[in-house]
Every structure is written in C-alpha cells, then in structure tokens.
C-alpha cells in the first residue's frame, strides 16, 4: 500500500486524487505508525516553511520509523515540493536540520529579483530538461512541463543524483533520484498528463 505521510502540511487531497486517476484506489493518507510500517511505498508531500515542516514531522513522532523504513528497509519514497527539501541535510530557510536522506542542501534562489525581473516565488508552469531518465521520466511525454511554487530549491552534492533541471534565473535541480529515494520540486499532482505519468512511474517502480 502507498502511504502519503500526513504531518499537517500540504495538499494531501490532490495527491490522493491523482493516485486514484492512475489506478491506485487504495492509497492512504496517514500518520499512524502501523500504516507507515506496512507501507510498500511512501510519499512525503508538503507546502510551507522548512522549519514548520520539520517541527510538525517531529511532533508526529514518526521520524525514527521513517528513517528505518527509508534508509534500512529501502522503501521507495517520493518527496514532493517541501517534501523534497525536507529530504536534504539543511535549508537556508530554517534552523532545524532536515531528514538528510539525500546528500544535498536547500538554498534560496541566488538572484536579485529587482535586477533580473524574476519574481520569487517561482510560480507557474515551467519546462524540465531531463539529463537521465531515472525512474520518474520513463516513457515521459514530449516537452514535459510541470507546475511549480517555491522560493527555495535543492542543490545536490552528488551530481549523479540529478535527474532533471529547470531554468529560472539559472538551472536548478527540479528532480532528484538516489536509488529508491526520489523527489520533485514541482507539483506532479497538479501537472496534467505529465504529472500522471510521473506518479504512474513511481507507482510501478519495483
């Protein structure tokens, strides 16, 4: 069973709706240890601030169990938006350490909005340049584009982990995969057929 980890941050309903659309009727939103224990796959969603996210995650008391599921049991995991950033070691947005499941950090967009004319947050549909198909871009539609809303982005310390980049001021890693741990900065659940295909690829990953 696919468990969408509920720690009070993020758009759980839309991920559930998207999973139903790709033929997974029994995915479940949960913060119960018993559900997480028997999950075949995990999705870590998230919208909002880094520290609030980490704080809420701590309050659920699930971090130990999640570490075990992801790092020891190697349960395939997908981080989405803030959920991607929480997988990193730390973020310039906050003080609390991240989960540190991937060798990466989260940084603020490094350009001056006044000089570049680019607004922060980066909001709207943008394209991605896929550097390696990884799991999530297998048989992807041509010219994939996705819906983004974020002010911070992930910098990987391991270039091999970067699956796709997106241009906003400069190129940043929009999709990362390190073995069974995957993450997307955009919202695939709100990205039409492109997002459907991405979730389908995650669901079918074995």
């Amino acid at each position, binding site marked *: 069973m696919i468990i969408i980890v509920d720690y009070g941050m993020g758009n759980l309903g839309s991920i559930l709706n998207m999973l139903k659309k790709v033929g997974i009727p029994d995915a479940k939103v949960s913060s119960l240890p018993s559900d997480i224990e028997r999950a075949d796959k995990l999705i870590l969603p998230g919208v909002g601030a880094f520290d609030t996210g980490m704080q809420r995650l701590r309050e659920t008391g699930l971090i130990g169990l999640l570490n075990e599921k992801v790092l020891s049991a190697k349960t395939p995991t997908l981080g989405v938006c803030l959920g991607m950033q929480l997988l990193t070691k730390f973020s310039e947005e906050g003080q609390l350490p991240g989960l540190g499941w991937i060798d990466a950090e989260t940084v603020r967009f490094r350009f001056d909005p006044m000089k570049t004319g680019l607004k922060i*947050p980066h909001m709207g549909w943008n*394209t991605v340049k896929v550097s390696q198909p990884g799991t999530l871009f297998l048989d992807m539609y041509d010219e994939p584009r996705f819906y983004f809303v974020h002010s911070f982005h992930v910098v990987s310390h391991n270039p091999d982990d970067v699956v796709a980049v997106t241009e906003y001021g400069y190129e940043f890693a929009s999709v990362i995969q390190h073995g069974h741990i995957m993450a997307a900065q955009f919202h695939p659940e709100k990205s*039409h057929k492109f997002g459907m295909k991405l979730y389908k690829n995650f669901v079918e990953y074995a």
Partner: protein
Amino acid sequence: MLMPRIMPCLLLKDGGLVKTVKFKNPGYIGDPINAIRIYNEKEVDELIFLDITATIEKRDPPYQKLTEIASECFMPVTYGGGVRDVETIRHILSLGIEKVSVNSYAVENPDFVRAAADRFGSSTIVASIDVRKKLFGQYEVVIDGGRKGTGFDPVTFAVKMEQMGAGEILLNSVERDGTQKGYDIDLIKSVTGAVGIPVIACGGAGQVEDFSAAVADGGASACAAGSMFVYYGTNRAVLITFPERRKLEEALKPGGDVSG
C-alpha cells in the same frame, strides 16, 4: 521557460456555472464538472472558481461541489467566496484545492489575511480585489460582489494585502467584466508597479492579444478570463474552450505577438 499563466475564471451559483456582465445578470453556462473535463483535455494552466453569492447569502463555501471539483482537477485550483475564517480555509485545502482567495472579508478585517498566510503559507492565499471606476475616473475597491464601495484606492489596498502576506493578487475590473473589450491596462499597471507579488489580470479578455497586452504593457504575471473561455461568437453561444498552447506561446513570448 516560465510562461505567464492563463486561467479560466469560473463563477459558481447554486452549484452551476454562470457568467456575468459587469458583475450582473448571471447567465447559466452549465455543469462545472463537464467544463473541468474539457479544461483538463485542453491542459489549461490553472482554474479559479468563485462562488458569487456565498458572501451575500452569508453561507459557507459549497464544500460538496468543491470536493467534486477537486477530484477532477489535475491543474492548480483557486477557490473564493464566503471565506471568513481559518477553519474554512483548512477545510477547503483538505479537499485538494491549492489556493483560497479572500475578498470582502479582507477589506473588513485585513489581519485575517495575515493570520491565513501565517498558517497556510503566502503562496496559498490570494487577495481578490474587485475595482470599479468612479465618475471622474478614479478607481475604488468594491466588495459584496461589486455592490458596496469601500473608499479604498486599489493600489493602496493591494500594497496592504502584500504586507499582510497575500501571495498573489487577483485584480478584477467590474466595468470590463463580461465585455471582452480588453483588460484595463492602466489599472493593472498601477497595481503591478506598486507590489512585488504576482498580479492576475481579470475582466475584459476577448482575444489572445489581450493577454499579451496585460503581460507586456500591464506587467501582469497571469491572466484570467471568463467569457472568452465559455462563449463562442457574437451571439455568446456556450462553448467551453481554451486557446491552443502554440498560439499562447507565440503571443506570450517576450516581444511576441500573434499578428502575422
């Protein structure tokens, strides 16, 4: 490349879709779910749903309808109408709606916008501002579906909404609503020049060139339209539609236009 977002702005009344002209005479368009299925096929960037009578009838948002809407929308969705407390926003977001817009109540109680932005993040909260032109050409923010003046100037009010933590401004011109005569570029320009957050132009779009004007001349980050995406032809026959992506890309690329 990041493209300016183009979004249908759809009005709900008694569970059905309607379209107004200058905020009046709501004409029935059809069932929202049918419209969403077509917009999914057309891969629209985003959708806005506004319940135009929730505030004046002093009732809750139509949660059941929003549940159905959210389960069909595979693009971001904003809902507005009758939003007056944090619990209402939490409920709406839990259904799978991304953003909530606040309009009349933001005028009565601007601190509510701050409370909502603190709780749910700025990118979730849209300040919806309806504007009408007064006798001598001055602009005024209006509430209660355009029924009531507030004495606020839209630029001052937009700046206040940004300070309160709103992540976007949906700027709607009452005079242009439903006319398809083009956006009020002066109004859009005055607001985009004063705030740093994205402004969604709304009211008056009739053709793709109007989007180019709102973005290039007005400085809008996104364009919303109603009539253009629900009517066809001069007789305003109902037809749920959306321009082809190539046509939008051509019109919206920097320095681009669709002529020739």
